[in-house]
């Protein structure tokens, strides 16, 4: 018997939905096996990482707060990936976005209020976009691969962060710690009463639907889709490839910058050297697990946030390091990328070709 992959006439819509779910389940299964092999209670670890944050209501707000930046960044990245623009420097754009917001906050001094908050958030979007604009220039003018340039710019952003929080942005009353001064109460995003859920979570819930509408109904979304699916056809249709690269990178950077500004003004209220927490990289997994679909990204963002929160739970219950969550996230990406093939191909099990031979039939007496 042989196993054969056969191309489907059309991509399977069922598989498009099934494979991400299967990837999560396989990740859990493999997690149990691996941790058991390591002599740790694997079942308990997997339950704590994947289920406790969902079952324990007091963890929900943590999940929501962690999911917000993942969803917002993931949305931006999914747009770029749809257009075959691979921005993997969202982490840097996120940091720069937050720093720009901090810059506006510092400039505003003690002044607060909605206008200042709005200005800070706008600064975050512009900053993140500007950081992504550099790779866009390099790509459209010089043909520099954006995968390399965006990643390298992440490290530049981290250097900028440590310079700013250790120098110009350092809290003058902060006992010389490299951190910005905490925001005043009227400079931070409003919270849901009695929770840590800030306005950014609401933004993360609304944006996916806005993106969904844009991608499926607007000429802009059409342009992104057609450039990604068939660049040559896009050119034939009158869509400029360079313009699309610009749009994809500016939106990716802008969204990352927005997430940074929201995280700063909503959740952390200060920026220190620990500000970059890997959301920009995890959001790549979110985009793929969500199948580059805005609603998929919303769900995937929550799943990944669960693993972040669950990782902390498992740390205390089964005493495994917090980095374990990273391992699970990586496994998920692994499975989702590997299972991608089932969307376009079907697996067929076939016997040996000889067994299928029918008795030799005479040629049909057609014609003449």
């Amino acid at each position, binding site marked *: 018997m042989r196993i054969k992959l056969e191309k489907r006439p059309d991509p399977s819509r069922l598989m498009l939905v099934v494979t991400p779910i299967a990837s999560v389940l396989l990740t859990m299964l493999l997690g149990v096996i691996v941790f058991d092999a390591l002599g740790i209670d694997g079942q308990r670890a997997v339950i704590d990482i994947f289920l406790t944050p969902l079952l324990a209501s007091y963890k929900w707000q943590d999940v929501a707060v962690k999911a917000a930046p993942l969803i917002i960044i993931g949305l931006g990245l999914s747009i770029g990936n749809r257009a075959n623009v691979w921005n993997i420097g969202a982490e840097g754009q996120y940091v720069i976005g937050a720093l720009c917001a901090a810059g506006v906050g510092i400039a505003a001094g003690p002044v607060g209020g909605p206008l200042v908050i709005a200005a800070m958030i706008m600064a975050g979007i512009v900053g993140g976009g500007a950081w992504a604009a550099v790779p866009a220039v390099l790509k459209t003018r010089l043909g520099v691969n954006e995968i390399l340039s965006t990643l390298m710019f992440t490290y530049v952003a981290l250097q900028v962060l440590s310079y700013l929080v250790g120098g110009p942005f350092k809290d003058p009353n902060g006992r010389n710690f490299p951190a910005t001064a905490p925001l005043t109460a009227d400079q931070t995003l409003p919270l849901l009463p009695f929770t840590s859920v800030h306005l950014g979570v609401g933004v993360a819930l609304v944006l996916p639907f806005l993106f969904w509408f844009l991608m499926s109904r607007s*000429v*802009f979304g059409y342009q992104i889709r057609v450039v990604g*699916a*068939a660049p040559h056809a896009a050119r034939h249709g009158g869509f400029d490839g360079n313009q699309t690269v610009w749009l994809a990178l500016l939106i990716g950077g802008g969204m990352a910058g927005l997430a940074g500004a929201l995280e700063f003004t909503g959740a952390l209220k200060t920026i220190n050297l620990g500000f970059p927490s890997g959301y920009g990289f995890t959001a790549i997994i979110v985009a793929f697990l969500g199948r580059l679909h805005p609603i998929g990204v919303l769900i995937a963002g929550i799943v990944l946030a669960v693993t972040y929160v669950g990782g902390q739970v498992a740390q205390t219950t089964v005493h495994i390091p917090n980095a374990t969550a990273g391992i699970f996230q990586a496994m998920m990406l692994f499975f989702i990328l590997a299972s991608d093939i089932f969307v376009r191909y079907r697996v067929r099990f076939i016997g040996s070709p000889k067994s299928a*031979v029918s008795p030799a*039939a*005479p*040629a049909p007496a057609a014609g003449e």
Partner: protein
Amino acid sequence: MNDRLPNRLELIGITKRFPGVLANDNVSFAVKPGEIHALLGENGAGKSTLVKMIYGIMQPDAGDILWNNQEITVANPKAARKLGIGMVFQHFSLFDALTVLENIALGMDAKIPQRELEVKIRAVMQQYGLLLDPRRTVATLSVGERQRIEIVRALLLDPKLLIMDEPTSVLTPQEVEQLFVVLRKLASEGCSILYISHKLHEIKALCDTATILRGGKLVDTCDPKEETSRSMAEKMIGAGLKEIKKPANTLLGRPKFIVDRLTTRPDGAVGIGIAEVSFTVHVGEIFGIAGVAGNGQNALLDALSGEITVRRGEAIRLDEAPIGAVGPTERRRHGLSAVPEERNGHAAVPEFALYDNSVLTARDRMKMVRSGLLRRGVAKTYTDKVIAEFAVKAQGPNATAGSLSGGNLQKYIMGREILQNPSVLVVSQPTWGVDAGAAAAIHQALVDLAAEGSAIVLISQDLDELLSLCNTLAVINEGRLSRPMNIEDVSIEEIGLLMGGVHGESAEMAPTVVPPTTIVAPTPMAPEAEPAHAH
């Protein structure tokens, strides 16, 4: 050929099923040693699938393959080559940057020292009059020469059966004759040849036997010399051929579309640009551009459609409006539509639904966009209209373009452009890889569009198509366009020479274009030539 010889190859009841189609249905035929056996059929008739099974690329679902009366299973192409089955594909697998010798060495199953291989190659070339310099870089060779590399590669294995898949689709008439000389010599030495084609006059000129397939089924095995082109075509298509109705009145109107010294830069190192191309198309005129593939047709189409723009707007004028400097969207607003040669990924997006493909080029003229948003309903209605008026076999506007057969997709694309009522239509290879029924429908649509007062530029490698449709014909070679000729005044010979890069009526060689070393020694032969109009 001797009828009493045992069969070299025999197929018994070969059946192959793909999801949704029965590609081969109980096909049986036999090939004798030294026989040139044609496999004739429309695109999608199952010819390629059949030979892929003989060459071991696929396995049949049912049926037997007999080789010298022994039942065999051809597990893979390597096993096929070991048996003595060689194949020359329609699309070459050559590395442009490497030499002929290096390319052949890369394709060999056995490792042979380069010096030894070169001796062998030269011997084969000598034997069959395939003149080619093994040290030349492939990028500098013409398509005909590249095909010779593939033939030499196959001949080095001393094949007993050579499969040729549509070998003449990219050759000039002269190169076709040279190829036939080689094939006849091979056959005379006992090598069987399985010749896949849908060009009837070639089959009549070359082949001893023809097996005709239609819709995966064997229709007939006949002697092409005793058939007429028309009778074979009818077996191939299964119904009477429709004549193209051309309006009797061929008086042309005023100049509509003027191209004036249009020049573009080559795209990449081995690409080709166009140089100083000038022509004028009048209202109601079909202006044909003949030429061998890879002589700048794609560059010309890109330059005319607006995918490539030039600084000087006056280089292209439509009704006196300079449009050379603006892109495709703006040119469409002026009424210029274009259909590129490649359907998948250029004229259409295979993953997209048909209505989404309508948005690609018809969104402006057919008002599918309002304030930045797509009007899906409008796109679907328009797509429905295209499907209905051009008899596209598709499951409605929601079917993906990739799910359509080549012919149906081409009908959809042509319909999408024609129903926008363009005043100028530029099409490249509109019937390439399209079955005869669809080709006839497309030809009729072009003739009708011209009759309604549009100007049409038809770029094609199919001389029959050009001669039957066009009012005026020019030939493109190495990015340069010959002078336009009235269709009544052209001769096949002259076009052939122009296609091969020989300019001027005296037919003198232009040494810079075709280096003398690459010309096959002219062998006197009397091709049983058909008139170019096969039907």
